[in-house]
């Protein structure tokens, strides 16, 4: 459909308005990060950079940030592993209960966070604690991975659906065993799906509060730190600064991932690359 000029303009305007809607509160947050006063009144009292200094000095914020990064990386790795395994199983084999797997995988993220949180909390306390593994970073990672599996799973399933098996069979006909084929043929083909899924999984884990509340023990991830400090009237400006800095910093990985996932991802690419290398 060649959209009419009117439609194109209307869509452009709508997009701009939607983006404005999305970014307006973020601008307000940024404004309060520079606010001179302690309380979030409107209009703001004046501009200052002092909160940035205090935030960078704040050991609680720094520790919470590192904990969140560690938890996010761990959860993403675990989700990548488990999600890919499940995706391969569902996409490549036919078995009883195949449809149920998709359903099961989406449950942790579809059910209310408080239910998932309470359930995981009960599991960790009854099963892990007798073995000496208390609530802490490990349980946070496992908890986050539980609902992050679905984003990796969906991306990989969608990609596998588009991949033809013939290229893998060709690889094995040429003498590669299963592991070599996986490493050299399959993995490159699903790499961008893994990247997209992993990025979204990391974002989900990084900002999660409700399930983390139930599984963190005395560890403080960044959202938990923010939650604690929102109820301290004088810490509010620092919280705003932290939020702004995190958004700005997140532009880097998001942009890189965006560029990387724009490569051609059809079946032909690995074949063309292989053919090119042989000359």
């Amino acid at each position, binding site marked *: 459909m060649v959209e009419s000029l009117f439609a194109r303009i209307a869509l452009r305007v709508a997009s701009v308005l939607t983006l404005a809607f*999305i970014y307006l509160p973020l601008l307000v947050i940024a404004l309060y990060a520079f606010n001179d006063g302690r309380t979030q009144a409107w209009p703001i009292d004046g501009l200052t950079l002092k909160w940035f200094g205090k935030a960078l000095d704040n050991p609680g914020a720094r520790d919470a940030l590192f904990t969140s990064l560690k938890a996010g990386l761990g959860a993403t790795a675990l989700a990548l592993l488990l999600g890919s395994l499940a995706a391969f199983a569902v996409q490549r084999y036919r078995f009883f209960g195949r449809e149920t797997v998709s359903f099961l995988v989406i449950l942790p993220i579809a059910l209310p966070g408080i239910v998932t949180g309470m359930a995981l909390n009960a599991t960790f306390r009854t099963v892990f604690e007798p073995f000496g593994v208390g609530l802490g970073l490990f349980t946070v990672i496992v908890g986050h991975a539980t609902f992050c599996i679905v984003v990796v799973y969906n991306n990989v399933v969608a990609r596998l659906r588009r991949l033809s098996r013939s290229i893998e069979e060709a690889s094995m006909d040429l003498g590669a065993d299963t592991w070599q084929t996986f490493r050299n043929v399959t993995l490159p083909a699903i790499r961008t799906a893994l990247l997209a899924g992993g990025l979204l999984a990391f974002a989900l884990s990084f900002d999660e509060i409700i399930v983390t509340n139930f599984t963190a023990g005395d560890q403080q991830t960044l959202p938990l730190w923010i939650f604690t400090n929102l109820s301290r009237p004088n810490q509010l400006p620092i919280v705003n600064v932290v939020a702004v800095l995190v958004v700005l910093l997140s532009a880097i990985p998001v942009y890189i991932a965006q560029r990387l996932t724009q490569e051609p991802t059809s079946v032909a690419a690995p074949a063309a690359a292989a053919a090119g290398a042989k000359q």
Partner: protein
Amino acid sequence: MPPDELAATPPRSSAGRRLATFLYGHPRLQLGLLLAAPMGWLVLAYLGSLAVLFLAAFWRLDPFTATVVHDLGFDNFRTLWNTDVYRRIALRTIGIAAAVTLTDAILAFPIAYYMARVASRRVRGLLLVAILMPLWSSYLVKVYAWRTMLQEGGVVNWALDPIGLKGPGFGNVATWLVFSYLWLPFMILPVYAGLERIPSSLIEASGDLGAKAGRTFREIVLPLAFPAVVAGSIFTFSLTLGDYITPQLVSNNQFVGNVVYDNVGVANNLPFAAAFATVPVVVMIAYLLIARRLGAFESL
């Protein structure tokens, strides 16, 4: 390279290769190994603990000792059914979740369509980054910002004052507004992916057959994009259904999540909390089953 040199040397036998050959002959073992880890955790640990949690819904809290008594009964469910307020809270929660879903679907469609079919490659990339970045700013900070914006002397009232209007203040409208804001990116992404998947050839064919743009949109694009919208709605609906933080910050009204959280914490009445938690769970499972029917799972 002469062809016969390629075929001459057989592959070396190693442990990895032997294992690969063994697995090749046992496809079901392959399947078992693939599924063991993810299904093991999800079924045994997650579903198992969910089951125990909902088993607790049939127990009750002993008022004298304030401990949970393990005799089965429907007391909690009877209280839920008979008391007006719980029905009201459940309906309020579901109602706002539905409103948020509808709002986000409408808001997301134009920008998703623009990104998928109109924008140039570079603009599309930039827009994707622009939509993904806010996901990283803390949920809590965003809700608190809205709270500040909606309060008496906040931005919203200040902006609407010159035209003589007043902002919604705190309440149901505020909750709907904030939820719609929070979950919008989760709706834009699947709809964008769904719209991108529609082959242009279909749309061109429709035009060739004489349909105007509006008809093509209504009869070709919308039905094909619908599963993606449903996929996005899974997130908007479920995230609203279970949230207890936002209602507390921008309204005085209780949602299902608040009642569950308060009963887990306040009265330490886990059986009652579990009983009330069955409401959103049942609603969500029904929603998921319908969504699967509509093809949403392939569009996530």
